[in-house]
């Protein structure tokens, strides 16, 4: 018996561990035209309108991709019933069920609890099926402490933490667990104000970042390696900006992980989702609002805004950086905007323009045209901007 115990323990150490979370009601509002499923009243209305859950089926498609793993090689943790257990069994695999839920009445708090418990079990990756709301819940629970990947199942997918479809999600997770994909990238969790969205107004904001496997396509043909390791690509941009900061200039550092890379390179405290102010390599203030920025602009003769491209759709202004208001942008001057991004980000936007939505139509027009985006050490690309 003792020997068997050792063997089991060894298997446990060697095996890969994955947590699977399914938001059973994600996407339920989409088909019945409700633009989202957040909030119990909406959910009830959706069910009343005859909505059928879409997300569980999508989760099953993703989970089926793990069929080649032997059971001793992969331990799958799920929450009970419709939050993962049912989907894993439906895919023909055997889950290890943790936690408890009230079946038929699951809530965002269940998603958060599941993610937290999986993190405590040291899983290699959490695969979750849902929409932007689900991604937010997972983010609140695990932040950047473990790799995650989303199976797109919700009505709203603005976040960059999702695979393009359920099958790809399953395959990418397989490759990550097998060590074929090792690189991870910080990707945006975006969400919109659902009340406003139902009124027809789109207001998205950057909610945070999570780590997802970076499928830098592999080097099958040595001469045609594609993609760049995210960490190295970010480092080159950050070095270039950090080493070339001008003296006696107020730097307004926008939100986002690329700008954070610059701040880290300068060894300065920073706010991932907020705006920080820097002058002569010193932080003047962290996480400032529009009014505070304008106050500082009164005191300093020259300012430069450093911003990055936010989200998979390529927004420069108007998503996640509303502190940089039209007034702020005009005071700084359109010639004093520096846009930075990693090469991977810009290649992923190939043939799409960058977008601006400052809330000021005139300014949007002025910003339209072409801009230079710094993508490496002394390397930049010209990109079209559209309002």
């Amino acid at each position, binding site marked *: 018996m003792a020997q068997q115990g050792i063997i089991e323990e060894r298997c446990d150490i060697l095996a890969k561990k994955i947590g699977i979370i399914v938001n059973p009601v994600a996407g339920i509002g989409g088909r019945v035209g409700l633009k989202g499923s957040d909030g119990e009243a909406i959910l009830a209305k959706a069910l009343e309108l005859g909505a059928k859950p879409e997300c569980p089926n999508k989760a099953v498609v993703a989970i089926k991709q793990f069929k080649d793993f032997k059971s001793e090689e992969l331990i799958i943790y799920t929450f009970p019933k419709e939050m993962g257990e049912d989907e894993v069994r439906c895919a023909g695999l055997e889950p290890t069920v943790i936690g408890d839920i009230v079946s038929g009445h699951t809530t965002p708090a269940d998603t958060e609890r599941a993610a937290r418990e999986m993190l405590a079990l040291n899983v290699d990756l959490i695969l979750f099926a849902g929409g932007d709301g689900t991604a937010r819940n997972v983010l609140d629970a695990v932040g950047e402490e473990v790799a995650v990947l989303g199976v797109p199942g919700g009505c709203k997918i603005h976040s960059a933490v999702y695979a393009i479809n359920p099958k790809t999600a399953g395959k990418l997770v397989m490759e990550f667990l097998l060590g074929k994909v090792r690189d991870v990238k910080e990707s945006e969790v975006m969400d919109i104000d659902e009340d406003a969205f139902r009124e027809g107004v789109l207001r998205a904001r950057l909610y945070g970042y999570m780590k997802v496997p970076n499928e830098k396509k592999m*080097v*099958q043909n040595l001469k*045609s390696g*594609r993609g760049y390791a995210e960490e190295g690509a970010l480092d080159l941009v950050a070095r270039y900006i950090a080493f070339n900061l001008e003296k006696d200039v107020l730097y307004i550092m926008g939100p986002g992980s690329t700008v954070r890379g610059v701040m880290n390179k300068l060894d300065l405290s920073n706010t991932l989702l907020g705006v920080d102010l820097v002058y002569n390599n010193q932080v003047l203030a962290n996480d400032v609002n529009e009014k505070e920025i304008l106050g500082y602009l009164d005191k300093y003769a020259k300012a430069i805004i450093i911003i990055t491209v936010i989200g998979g759709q390529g927004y420069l202004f108007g998503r996640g950086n509303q502190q940089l208001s039209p007034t702020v942008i005009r005071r700084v001057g359109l010639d004093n905007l520096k846009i930075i991004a990693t090469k991977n980000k810009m290649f992923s936007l*190939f043939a799409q323009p960058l977008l601006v939505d400052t809330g000021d139509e005139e300014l949007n027009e002025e910003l339209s045209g*072409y801009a230079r985006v710094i993508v490496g050490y002394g390397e930049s690309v010209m990109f079209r901007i559209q309002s």
Partner: protein
Amino acid sequence: MSKAYVRTNFHEARWDEPMIYELSTPGTRGILVPEVEDEIVAAVGDVAASLPDQVKRKAPLLLPEVDQKHVLAHYIHLTQEAMGSNLSNDLSEGTCTMKYNPRLGETLAMDDNFASVHPAQDDSTMQGVLEIFYKFEQIMKEISGMDRFSFQPGGGNHAVYCAACVMRAYHASRNDVKRDTIITTIFSHPTDAASPHTAGYNVITLYPDEKGIPDYEGLKKAVAETGDHLAGIFMTNPEDIGIYNPNIDKFVELVHSVGGLCYYDQANANAFLGVVRAREAGVDMCHFNVHKTFGTPHGGEGPANGAFGCREFLTKFLPKPTIEFDGDKFYRDYDRAESFGKVREYFGTAGVILRAYSWTMMHGAEGLRECANISVLNNNYLEKLLLSIKGLGEAFQGNGITRQEQIRYTWEELNKETGVGTDDINRRINDYGLPYYWESHHPWVIPEPMTLEPCETYSKCDLEEYYLTLKKVAQEAYDDPEMVIGAPYKSAAHKLANAMDLDDPEKWAITWRAFLRKHGDKYLKVK
């Protein structure tokens, strides 16, 4: 006329061949070097004793000890596991211009009167070689309209690096030293960004407009932003995707208007030999990959040559030596005070220049133009065939622009519908006797790319064989995607179990000794 077919019964050799080091048996010799005769020893004494200690080996050479028969068999096995331009239907290698290499060129290059010449010899002892370089330079001047050429660059990258050095020397000669930025385009050969960057320039890359042409509005903004920091522009035309930039004159005019120089990458010149010239396009410098356009063998990393040409006002900055003729003899001129220096030793890859000279003389001016015409015709015929294949498209399809000598296709639709991507198709065509095709240069912005270049070498039958094979493989992808993903089955090449391993510095080493130190006999076939 021969009829095209798919080689469904193709099967390549797989020898499961070990490394030659693994074939080593201690004491075995391929050649027994005779003992030095007593008479010679008596005359010269102990030659080894005259060598300084620091150049003497402390440990014996670790060479494989294999007899002649097994060395020969080993390398024949390896060649049977290879495909190549003179062996198979290699219109696959888009951007590489894989032409037939006439046997005459090989015969000339192997002639002992040529092959035994060393570039360190005195000029007077290699007048023939210098004459060939000199005469080939006159041909290149005519083809491009440039005023001088250097054949010193050992390939395209060298030639582009050379351009960056000439550009810097030119601006420096005018005390205009703040010009630190060059502009290039995303579908220019990637060396147009990489080489100037290596030479210390900042690089701005232009994306194409909706038609696939480098964006002129983007250029205007880049030029305006760069101002007097602009050193020049580096651009390939036609670009990597096979589209000719019809605005080239506007590009040149704009860059010249702010004091920049214009460089034309003509690595692959097959679309326009005898049709258009760099001079008329208005550029100041250009280069040709001699090994591509001028019919010399390449691949397997060489041999190559990058012929770099420029206008008169830049010739003083060319690398040294240049090859000159004084009316009586040919000679190398090292006395060039304003030359930027060298990009490589000596004065050029003689074997490539000799073959290219022979190839060009065989064709004559009319023949060169015919090469371009047939290449463009071949490419457009193949395009018509291939675009009828379900799941296959091309970059900027339907933009109304006739393609030049090559095309970047995309398997994006097939990939979305079946999960089979370009890597999978690429392995599967091996099972029908076609070599791997060239997917794309960096960056991979056209999804699931495939770049083909059916130059004048290929017959109608070759083009149709390629089409029939791709059509069959695409159909296989719809019928049985897993089978295609698992390919190849009948070729010597394998599917990599884990492609990321190729990036693993823990696994690989650059010498056999270092590899053994890392792994012992873990990976040896013969233990």
